[in-house]
């Protein structure tokens, strides 16, 4: 054999080997691909055991394939074959012992296998690979969180801070973890730390803390933590803002006021922070604190652009504070004509009126001026019964502020009421007419004016005209005025059937009552009792006398009227109304609980279908102290 032929054979053998390899490698890959797809099909059909067998076989050929390793791990865990999964990861880790992600995964497999000790050991090994790197802690921490080992994750993140030399690291993560573990105090402390690092994150921190301030314990814990921080760092503006927000969440307006005042001063906000606080507190009915804030603003910022609204707000708070103290509210505003002052010398509301007057004088061209005039007129009428003063205020308002139509409408309605009270029904009719316009009446104010116009006819004994006007109002069954209109319509129709002398007398007495001439009204009603003893009006008359005495705070006399009604007119259709009022007089006026309950029970017994039944039941339960 010659050298060339030997060489030729050798070259041929190499060529053959190369050709074979080139031919068989793709075939082998194709075979593995088919097997991998088959394993995936098994996995999708839920046959994890079969899938694992194939994945394992493939793994023997290609242990570096990440997708394959992931699939094998997934199915081993699905089958709870944790030991095999652990061996798999340990074998991979032998090749890449410093892979933090693989160690994190291995730790989580130990955790799933309920071996928390091994889990934490493995994670600690991961941490030891790069103990001064933030991402190490973030990686490992996320595996711990996924394994719901929250306490370990918190401890790990905290260690990460120290190791990385950044005490602000992981604050948001730790805060969240404390929050879901219901440890609201520590959660808040973490968020405070975040706020220290990033003051611009106040809104984010508020939103995080708001996830638990809906619960009393969450709000209390957050407030205590922020209080402590604010005390330690009184100059920290974000802490103060957070504290003020928490106080407002708790509706602790007094404490919030102090903080907002401080913030306003320190930020040189020129009163804007405090003004926003006062307006919000007024809306939330924290009148005393809002008043204090407004007063402070008035004295501290006499040239502020918001001064008109501040002075008006201040006056509103004074009015509301006096209203809350007003004993005429004993029977509630709903008691017909009941919310009237005891005497005109009542000093209440004087401060409010003075404050409103200042607004009018100082800002005559702004909308707060007519609003203030309207408030003054209402106090003068509703609280003082000072008809002349109220009239003058309203006329002044209407003459000067015709360009503010919404306020003018309210002013006209009030002026009409004042005119009725003054006995000037013609002038009242002009005002009501101006508001009502022509039928159909659309809108609450127009309907109200139209109803009042009909009432004027009723008071004057012009029943036919009254009924015509009422008919227009009853066409809109959805309106409040329609209900009142129907009631008056039926009353007139029932009591004019056999002559109208009695009802005319009654309407005149009712006008006196509307005019708050209570003694005169009571006297006129009592004369009806004598003159028209046999008419169907008598029970209604007794009710009205009782109501007048109630308004005059002559509770015993009022009670005797209602009791008389019950005794002498047991078939009366207004007896249920009488009994509910009797109960209220005993409960609120005479403080006689047993008699109040007896009155309500009588109502329930005799009038089980009365519209007052629910109210009577509620009162009985309140009086006997039931827990509902």
């Amino acid at each position: 054999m010659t050298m060339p032929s030997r060489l030729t054979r050798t070259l041929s053998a190499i060529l053959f080997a190369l050709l074979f390899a080139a031919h068989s490698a793709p075939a082998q890959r194709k075979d593995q691909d088919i097997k991998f797809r088959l394993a995936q099909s098994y996995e999708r059909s839920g046959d994890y055991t079969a899938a694992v067998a194939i994945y394992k076989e493939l793994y023997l050929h290609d242990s570096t394939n990440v997708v394959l390793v992931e699939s094998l791990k997934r199915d081993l865990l699905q089958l709870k074959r944790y030991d095999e999964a652990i061996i798999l990861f340990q074998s991979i880790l032998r090749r890449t012992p410093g892979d933090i992600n693989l160690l994190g995964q291995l730790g989580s497999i130990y955790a799933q296998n309920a071996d928390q000790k091994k889990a934490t050991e493995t994670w600690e090994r991961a941490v030891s690979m790069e103990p001064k790197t933030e991402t190490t802690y973030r990686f490992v921490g996320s595996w711990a969180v996924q394994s719901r080992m929250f306490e370990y994750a918190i401890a790990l993140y905290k260690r990460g801070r120290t190791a990385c030399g950044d005490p602000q690291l992981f604050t948001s993560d730790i805060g969240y973890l404390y929050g879901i573990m219901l440890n609201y105090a520590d959660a808040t402390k973490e968020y405070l730390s975040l706020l220290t690092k990033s003051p611009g994150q106040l809104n984010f921190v508020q939103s995080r803390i708001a996830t638990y301030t809906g619960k009393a314990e969450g709000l209390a814990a957050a407030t205590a933590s922020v209080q402590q921080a604010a005390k330690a760092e009184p100059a920290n503006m974000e802490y103060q803002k957070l504290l003020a927000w928490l106080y407002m969440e708790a509706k602790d307006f007094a404490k919030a006021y102090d903080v907002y005042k401080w913030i306003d001063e320190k930020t040189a906000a020129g009163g804007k922070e405090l003004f926003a606080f006062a307006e919000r507190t007024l809306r939330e009915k924290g009148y005393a604190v809002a008043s204090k804030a407004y007063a402070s603003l008035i004295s501290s910022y006499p040239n502020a652009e918001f001064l008109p609204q501040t002075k008006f707000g201040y006056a509103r708070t004074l009015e509301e504070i006096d209203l809350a103290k007003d004993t005429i509210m004993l029977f509630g505003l709903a008691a017909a004509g009941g919310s009237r002052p005891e005497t005109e010398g009542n000093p209440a509301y004087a401060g409010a009126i003075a404050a409103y007057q200042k607004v009018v004088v100082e800002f005559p061209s702004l909308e707060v001026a007519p609003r203030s005039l309207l408030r003054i007129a209402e106090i003068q009428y509703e609280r003082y019964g000072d008809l002349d003063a109220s009239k003058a205020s309203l006329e002044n308002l209407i003459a000067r502020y015709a360009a503010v139509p919404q306020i003018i409408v309210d002013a006209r309605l009030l002026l009409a009421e004042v005119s009725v009270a003054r006995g000037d029904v013609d002038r009242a009719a002009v005002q009501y007419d101006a508001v009502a316009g022509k039928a159909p009446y659309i809108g609450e104010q127009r309907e109200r004016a139209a109803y009042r116009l009909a009432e004027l006819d009723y008071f004057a004994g012009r029943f036919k005209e009254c009924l015509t006007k009422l008919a227009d109002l009853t066409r809109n069954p959805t309106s409040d005025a329609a209900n009142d209109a129907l009631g008056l319509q039926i009353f007139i129709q029932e009591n004019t059937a056999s002559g109208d002398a009695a009802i005319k007398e009654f309407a005149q007495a009712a006008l006196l009552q509307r005019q708050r001439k209570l003694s005169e009204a009571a006297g006129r009603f009592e004369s009806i009792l004598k003159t028209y003893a046999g008419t169907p009006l008598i029970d209604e008359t007794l009710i009205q006398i009782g109501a007048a005495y109630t308004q005059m705070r002559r509770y015993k006399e009022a009670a005797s009227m209602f009791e008389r009604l019950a005794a002498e007119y047991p078939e009366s259709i207004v007896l249920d109304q009488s009994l509910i009022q009797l109960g209220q007089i005993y409960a609120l006026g005479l403080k006689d609980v047993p008699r109040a309950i007896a009155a309500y029970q009588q109502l329930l017994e005799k009038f089980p279908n009365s519209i007052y039944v629910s109210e009577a039941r509620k009162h009985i339960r309140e009086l006997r102290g039931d827990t509902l």
Partner: protein
Amino acid sequence: MREMQRLSGRLVIAAVFVLLAFCQAAAPAQKILIPMDLKQTDHLKAYGIAYWALTKNIEVDWLLNYRSGSFMIDGLASVSAECRVRGVAFEELTGAAAATIYSVVQAEDNNMDAVRLEKAPKIAVYVTPNALPWDDAVTLVMDYAEIPYDKIWDTEVLADKLNDYDWLHLHHEDFTGQYGKFYASFSTAPWYVEQQVMYEKKAKELGFKKVSDMKKAVVEKVKSYIGAGGFMFAMCSATDTYDIALAAKNTDICDVMYDGDPQDPDAQKRLDFSQCLAFENFTLEKNPLRYEYSDIDIPASDMVATLNPETDYFTLFEFSAKYDPVPTMLTQNHANIIKGFLGQTTNFKKSLIKKSVTILAEKDGTEEVRYIHGNFGRGTFTFYGGHDPEDYQHAVGDPPTDLALHKNSPGYRLILNNILFPAAKKKQQKT
């Protein structure tokens, strides 16, 4: 197993009858009848009156099938006053009139009977300490009817506190340990996250590795309570999840997001239906993201859109009052056909209900069973599908139903029947 025993009080009732007949000339109101037919103004509070009377040691006769399950109480002024205060319609009867009613009820040819209620049952509601964002029909109706109850949870159940109670209601609960299977929709909602942490803490505190293990221990305790003579009532998902948890005693049906590890792939095969109270041969819903536990619920929770609220009604069965007093008590109502309502578990598939269980109500012509009752040991259990009888599709976050607007709700009445029947005086069975 012990069936609710029948009244031995035939003699008692007869004695009442004679006594009343003698007393007819005496005081005008010998008895107070609280009718439960359409004359009743507030059916729900009427049960509260019966309960209230029992707490005052005033005996109450429940007149099964007489005017839709009326109550007869001694004609005391305090009873009538309380009826008025609570807005419950009642009729004052002379002795003779009451005796006539008793004679009608006792007549052999009338499917009626009188059951003497003697003692106000002590009630426990199994409920998580934190308020969930939706309400529970049973606590709603007990509050409305003014029937007092205690709240208990896993700690109390596992400490054998159940023995202190006559009647147990399982609040809308998932005993499988899958947190209502709300994961797909609410896994990031604060209430969901907090609930899971709270449950896990409780499990750890009580020495369990997983919440599902703790719940398994709880269902076993409840089962023992029933076996020892307790009365258990469950609605909505507390019904099927209770039985699923019992069946899954030896396996893990929870996926990784619920208990940190995957389901047992052979969970279905390992279910032990012999452990269940009411169901058998059901198939688990293994998709952890699907809002359904098994095929017991019909239609499935994610198929309820196929139901038409206008035509969704179920029908109560009628039982023999004299021979089957317990099912009769449980089905007392002024309506036989009742408006349907959805829940996480709405109806039970008939083919999966054990033969030993009594079906009390179903949707005619379908596989859908609404209301079932059965015995275990010396006690009983009742399962009622759906969430809120007066809110067709009550969703998470919806406001609670105002029962003052549903005073005559037939659906809610069924719940209250359950509360009163443990008060019945036990008597020897006829059959």
